[in-house]
Each structure stands twice: as structure tokens, then as C-alpha cells.
């Protein structure tokens, strides 16, 4: 019975990817997250309420340990809340199991990590094809074509057949962005994507995200770099697991 429900849910998720533009794409209601540590319980998030509309480019800022990464892990389903609800395009992310999350994430969320996390034994193109392969989207013949198009979009098509180790940090991060876009997800989540890059490359990478937001993608990004705020449409500041500031940015 349970497996029937899960299969039904899986099919629903496969058949109904998130709409590209929708008001209130992300909704967090009273989200708390507690971790067990040697000293007892550590509250990483304390009752977060937050909404993100489709097409927004949101920066999540704050000091180390403020709960930024935990917050975006709630949105991507990488981590689950101790209490509260997380909805992404009406999907109750907090209620999905790991298997459902994998399917949902594959089609609806593109994730970019600070340390790129490209698989070292695959070429750049293969890294980009991999999510399409796992989620079985696009025909096998189309996948490579699409991967090359995405690599072209992020400006590293010349490196397509190289292994990640042969690329610079900036190039690797571009490859990771291309990979995040592989299944054409409406939502991109990035955890300090420029944290490992020089300022010039950082600018270029953020510009890339900004362009994607302009094209209609919703982007939520954790960052330390306040001087990049000109690119964001909104900035959410966390401190000790609480949103202390939520406002617009100097948007051009």
C-alpha cells in the first residue's frame, strides 16, 4: 500500500515539474533545525518563516554559523527540518522521503556547491550529462547536444572533453552551474559558489547567475560577499538561526 502511494507520488512528480514562474515559489513556515552536539542541542534555525517568489535572485547572508547553509539545505531537501514546513511550488519538501527527494530534486532544483564537486573521473560534458542520465530526461542523443549548449552558455565549451582536474577553479564552477542547469530546473540553489574563486572570477560567476535569474530562473544563493549585492534582487540576513533583515537590494 505504502509503495503504491510512493509510486503515485513519484509519477506525479515526474509528470508535473514546477512551473517556471509562480508567485511564492518557496515557502518556509516556522522551520527549526536542531543538531545534537557534544554539549547538547544546537539550534541552527529558530522558527524561520520565509517566502521566495519565482524569478527572484535571493542572497542569503550572515556570519559563519548563522544558519545560512542549513536554510538552503532545507529548501533543497538536503536536510530536513526538526519542525515546520517547507514548500517548493506547493510540494511539501519536508514530507518527502529520500527517494522522493532525489527524484524531485533531479528535475526541479539545480545545486551549485562551494567546492564545485564535479565527479573527478568524468569529463566536463559527462558531468553535465549525468543528471539527465539519472533522471532520464531528454533522449540519450540529445543529452550531449544539450550539455554542450549549456557549456557554451557558461563559456567553457572549449573545455568540454577535459577532466575537471584540468580546469581552473572558475571553469570548474561554470561547469558545476551547467550541470545544475542540465534538467532545466526552475530553481537554482548555490552555497557560496564564489567562496573558492578570485574576485574577478567571482564577478563573472555571479553575473552568470544574475543572467539566469533574468531568464526566469529563481536563484537562492548563500554568500559572504556583500559587495556583490548589486546583482541580487533581495537579501536575507541570518544571525544565530533567525532572519534579522529581509529586504531588497540595489537592483539595476
Amino acid at each position, binding site marked *: 500500500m505504502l509503495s503504491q502511494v510512493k509510486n503515485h507520488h513519484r509519477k506525479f512528480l515526474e509528470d508535473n515539474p514546477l512551473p517556471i514562474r509562480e508567485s511564492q515559489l518557496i515557502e518556509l513556515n516556522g522551520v527549526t533545525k536542531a543538531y545534537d552536539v557534544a554539549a547538547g542541542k544546537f539550534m541552527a534555525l529558530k522558527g524561520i518563516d520565509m517566502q521566495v517568489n519565482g524569478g527572484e535572485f535571493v542572497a542569503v547572508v550572515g556570519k559563519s554559523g548563522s544558519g545560512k547553509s542549513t536554510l538552503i539545505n532545507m529548501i533543497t531537501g538536503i536536510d530536513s527540518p526538526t519542525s515546520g514546513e517547507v514548500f517548493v511550488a506547493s510540494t511539501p519538501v519536508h514530507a518527502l522521503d529520500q527517494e522522493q527527494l532525489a527524484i524531485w*530534486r533531479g528535475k526541479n532544483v539545480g545545486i551549485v556547491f562551494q*567546492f564545485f564537486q564535479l565527479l573527478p573521473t568524468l569529463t566536463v560534458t559527462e558531468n553535465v550529462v549525468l543528471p539527465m542520465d539519472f533522471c532520464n530526461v531528454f533522449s540519450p542523443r540529445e543529452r550531449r547536444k544539450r550539455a554542450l549548449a549549456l557549456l557554451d552558455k557558461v563559456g567553457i565549451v572549449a573545455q568540454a572533453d577535459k577532466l575537471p582536474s584540468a580546469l581552473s577553479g572558475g571553469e570548474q564552477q561554470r561547469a558545476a552551474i551547467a550541470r545544475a542547469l542540465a534538467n532545466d530546473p526552475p530553481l537554482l540553489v548555490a552555497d557560496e559558489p564564489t567562496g573558492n574563486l578570485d574576485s574577478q572570477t567571482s564577478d563573472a560567476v555571479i553575473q552568470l547567475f544574475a543572467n539566469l535569474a533574468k531568464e526566469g530562473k529563481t536563484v537562492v544563493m548563500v554568500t559572504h560577499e556583500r559587495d556583490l549585492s548589486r546583482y541580487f534582487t533581495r537579501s536575507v540576513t541570518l544571525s544565530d538561526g533567525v532572519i534579522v533583515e529581509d529586504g531588497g537590494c540595489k537592483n539595476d
Partner: protein
Amino acid sequence: MISPRWGKILRDLQATRGRMVMVVITIAISIFGVGAMLSSYTILMREVGRNYLGTNPASAYLELDRVDDSVVEAVRHQPGIADGEATSWVLARVEAKPGEWRPFLLFVIKDFNDLRINKFAPEAGAWPPPAQTILLERDALKYINGNIGDVIHVQNSNGQEQEILISGSTHDPGLAPAWQGETAYGYITPETLAWLGEDDTLHILKVIVKDQEQGSTVIEATVGNLVDWLKGRGYTVGEIRIPPLGEHPHQSQMNTVLLTLMTFNLMTLILSAILTATIINGMVAQQIRQIGIMKAIGARSAQITGLYLVLITLLGMVSVAIGLPFGALAGRGFAGTIAENMNLTLYSESIPMWVYIVQVLMGTLVPLLVAWGPIQRTTRITVRETLNDYGTTRESFGSRGLDGWLGKIRGIDNTLILALRNTFRRRGRLVLTLGLLAAAGGMFMTGININAAWKQLIANAAEIRNYDLEILLSSPENAEKVLASISSVPGVQKVEPWNVMPVAVGRPDGLEIVRTYPDGGHGNLALRSAPLESNFLESTLLSGRQLEADDKDAVVLNHMAAGKFFPNVKVGDSINLTINGRTAAFRVVGIVRQNMIDPTVYMTPAEFAASTGLPMQSINDVRVSLKGHDVDTVNSLAEEIEHVLEVGDINLKAVLSETMLGNATIGHIYIFIYALLSISVVMGAVGALGMMSNMGISVIERTREFGVMRVIGAKSRIVYRNIISEGVFIGLMSWVIAIALSLPLSLGIGYMIGNLSFMVPLSLIVSPGALVIWLIVIVFGSIAASAYPAWQASRLTIRETLSYI
């Protein structure tokens, strides 16, 4: 185009080819070990049976006063009898080297071209043997250093010597090999027997019982009826030999070897499963971050599980492809060696299909089964946990009591402290690694310990024999005359009058049935008397007491006699013995342990004389102690004693020296020791390789940490030493556990095979050699296993180590 996920698997294989090769070799060695053992087991089981049963061994041998053609023909038509044949056997002596005489059992064959029972095959030279020539069994030819065409000196049972030509050789797989039994075998015609000075009347009737497969009860009943019929026709029936049905004389020896092989086989399987589990656990753990990334970009657990299961199946199949043919080759080689030692011919070296199937399943299914758990656990943990994994435990160091204790260690080099603490970080892995190494070490030590226990048993058996020569006389002689003759030889220290006679367990039907083979050994029960004050053969009293001078109808059993022939008899019980055709009851007053002495019933000299009807003053067995005990002295004095006895017209049946007894004993267990040591070496190799692959994985998964160490100032040398120290710590811990494990293993296996072979458990011996050898293997193995990955880790740049996923 191959899909990226499968491309990843192939490239992972390629990228980590050094480690993968080690994984494959380790699993392949396990398959090789199991394959070699199973192959040799199946070949030997089949071929021993085929060799022995191919001779059409008799169901029974009846000793008659005469066996002529008419009675043989009539016997063949008796109810329940399938076939019959006449033969004779005569115990003579052959001069193997100048002055060195060895027992020589002559089989008298009436028609070499119509062998029906106990068949043997021509090997080389003449067939049948021309008059006044002899055929020697092929192993006997080697035993006396003879060749076809040689003329050998033979001494008949009356002491007459004759030169006879070896005209050919035979192969008789129904007999124990000559070198093991310390007896040569020859085949002659009745005419040649007469020419040798013996009575050429045939005395032995061999019969095949129609329904022998139904067991010894049917055989005994049929033979009983036949005996009645023969007696009714005026024949005198003496000893009846009914050897164990369908069993080669050395079947129990073979069973011991095969049982040991199978026991170690099982252990190898367990070892291999632990090894595979350890390797796969490490392999999966090392890829935990990559698994996390794949899950983050949409891979389902089932997809990832599938990837790794295919990878493991691939590794397993490659291992099978390598291990299987070598296993078969080694199994055939091992079976061939044992067959040669047991004088068997391998008519076929084919290995049953199921052996190959077991190996294929073992190489693929076992890794898959043991991998299932770790893979499932890894793919089920959340993306956050996998991305946060630092390659070591998710629980931080310091969360358990042991960590606290380790944390307090001070006063030694920081690198060593770090290595020691690191050892305990991956507790699950550590337990598996230790389990693997300890199992391999424990088995290796057990092999050597058992070998040492065997040697000690042989040494103990030699120690309880305080004499140098046993001289068996052809017929009873006057004791005073024999003792005086022998005592006159300078160099003789002490001479004792003994007596010996084969006996049978008394039966209600009065038949004198023994379980002996045609060679007269293997399954015999001896009745002996010795001077009461004799210390030539020491024994350990297990229950009751020793014999006393005024004992009447009393006997003492040695443990082999008690165990094999009177299993439920206790001190105070009565047993029936048939001696010289007469059955009488005797009271058991004691049971003694005599290691490696054939089943024997002891009675006082007076009782022996009364029971056998021989005069009190006569003896047929003399035991002699000499002043010198080295082989040359013993041989030269044996020659002199033989000479003085010949001069005194005293005929000898055999002169058995301590060296010969020792050789015969070692000959019986040589194969076993050979098997045990071979297995120990395989175990050692599997363990050492397992450790190498484990250390490699353990080091690689901490690559990031080495980067951190380098960042804070550690030199390459420090990283290198840290890794090697950790390997050695693990090795040393496993060594201690292996010693603990080897104790119950040695005790259990020693109990099992000691009882199976000589009805005495082997002593628990902890061989210092085994401890030292394994310590050296483990220390050098740990260093060797850690050295390459340590060298690689120490050469990585900080950027490489920190970006390692």
C-alpha cells in the same frame, strides 16, 4: 555512447587500478584456495574409490589348510558368493642394501592372466613373471632401490636365502604404499614359491559376497555359512580377514586429510567473505562524497546501488577468471602429489562442474551479498551526511570511553599518538580488518601448531619405546637360547623375551574374524606378552591397573584396542578373544595409552602361554636395547644379531628398528602435514594481501586530512611515518588476537584429527616459530601495505589533497 554513470564506474576502475588489482588478486586468491581444496578433494575422493574398488577387493579372505581348484570352483557356486579365487601370501625378507633386510610380502598368484579378485596391473617388464623370477609392486621397487633386471636376495620364512630376478613391475592400488608400511610387495607363481623353499600349497581363499554392499553383517553371515560348508567338506578354517568394505587401507588417513582440507576450506570461505566485506566497505566509504553529489543532482538510491553492484560483479568476475584456472591447476597438482604418495593412479583429473559453480558463485555472489549491507547503508544516508563526510567516522573522536583513554596517552612521539588514535576512528572497518587478519593469522598459526603437535606426538611415541630393535621370529623358539645368542653380541645392552600373536574379537559363532587387509597390517589386533618388569614400552594408565604376576584370565588393553575393538568396554568388564581358533573370556583390568602403537591386548607371559598353547619357555618376539642408538650402530648391530641367530639356526620373520618404525609413522602422516602447511601458506597469503588492500583504502580515504596536516606544517616524512605507524599498530593488534584465536582452533582441530587418526587428541602446542613468522609477516606486511599509499599521500600537493573527493 556509453552513459556517464557507467562511464564513471569504468573510469573509477581505471583511476584506482592499483587498488582494484589488489582487490581482484585478494578475491582471486580466496577463490584459488577454495578451488584448489575443493578440486583436490573431489578428485581424490573419486579416484581413491576408483583405484581401490577397481581392484575388485575381496569381501573376505579365509585361511584354509589348502585351497585347490575344485574347492574354488565349488565355492563360486555357494549361495551368496559371487566369486572366489585361491592365493597365498608369505612374509619373507629382502635385502634392500647390503646387510639391510626389509619385510617382503610375497603374493602367490596361480594365473596372472586370469586375475579375478584383488586385481593388479602390469606396469613394466614381463607379465606373467617367468619361472624363478618375481614382479615387484612399483612403489616397492623404489622402496628397495631396485630396478627391473636386478637380482635381489630374498630370505624365506625358514631363513633360506635365494637370489631372484626382478622381471617386471606391477601397480597394486589395493595395498598401502611400500614406503609407508615399510614392507615391500612381490608377486610370484606357486612354482617360484616352491623354488624359494616354501610350501607351494595355496592357503588363502578370497571371496566376493554377492550382497556385500548391504554391509559387514551380510558378509559375515555369508562367510559364516561358507565356513560351515568348508568345515563340512573337511577343510580347516583359520583366520578370516574381512577388511572394511570398499575402504582403501589408508582411507582413514585420506579421510583425515580431506576432513582437514574441508575444515580449512570452510575457514577460507569465511576469510574470503570477511575480506570481501572489508574491501567493499572501504571502497564504498571512499566514494561516499561522490555518492552524495550524485544524489544531490537527482540519482536515486536504487540507481547508485545498481552502479556499485555492477562494479562489484565485474571485480568478482575478473577474480573468478584469474582464480578459477589456477585453483584447478593447483588442485590437480595437489591431488597428483597425494596420489603419488599413496601409490594411486589418477585415471581422471576432471573436476565436477559443481566445484566451478561454487567458485563462480563465491566470486560473484559472496561479494554481492557482503556488499549489499554497506552499499545500502551508504546510499540511504542523507545527502547532507555524505557531503559532510570527512572520510572517517561521522561520530567525532572523543565520543567513546576508549577515545578518552587514548586521549590520555602521553610521553610518546606525537606522530605515533596520532597514528594510534587514528587506528580507532573507523571502528567498524577496524573490526573487519582485525577480523580478517586475525582469522588468517589464527589459521596460519593453527596449521603450524598442528604440525608441531604431530611432531610431538611422533617424538612422544618414540620416547615411550625404550628399545632399539624388535626381532620377530618365524616360529616360536627357546627363549633361553635366543636371549643368550643375542646377548653375546657386543654392543647389546638388554634383551627381553616378548611374544606376539594376531587375535580376533571372540564371536558367538566362533569365527575368527579380523579386520585386516592382505598386507596383514591396518586393522589388526595383536595379543602380546612382555616381562612384567619391562620398561621397553612405557604406557600411561588411563583406568584400572597394570598386569600383575598372579593375574589369571586378565588383560590390559591399549587405548587403540579399546577404542577400535572394544568401544564400550570398561575396566572390570569381560571380553572374548579368539586365539588360535579357541574363544575364551578375559577380564579387563586396565586400559593404557600408548601413542602410535597398534591395537594391542596385553597379558602376562604365563597367561599368554596358557591361552595360545605355546610352551612357557618359547618366544617369537625379542626386543633389544643397544648401547649406541645412532642409525649406523643400530643397523650394524642388527646385522650381527641376525648373523648369530642364523648360526644358531633361528629363523627371522622381520627385524624392525626404531628408524623403520619412525619412518612408517611419519609416512602415514606425511601427507597430512604437507596438506596442512600448504593450506597455512595460502591462508597467510590471503591475510597479507587483505591487509595490503585494507591499508590502501584506509589511507586513501584520509587524503584530505593529510592535506590539513601538511597545511599546518607536517613534512612529507611525518605523513609517511604516521601512515606506516598506523598500519603497524593494526598489524600488531591483529597478531595478538590471532594468537588468542589460534588456541581454541588448534585445540579443536588437534582433537578432531588426532582422534580420527590415532584415537588420541593432539596436544595443544603453541609453536614459537608460528608466532614469530606471523609477527614478521604482519609487521613487514603492514609496512609494505602502507608504504606505497603513504608515499603517494606524502607526494600530493596540498591543493590536491584538499580538493580530493
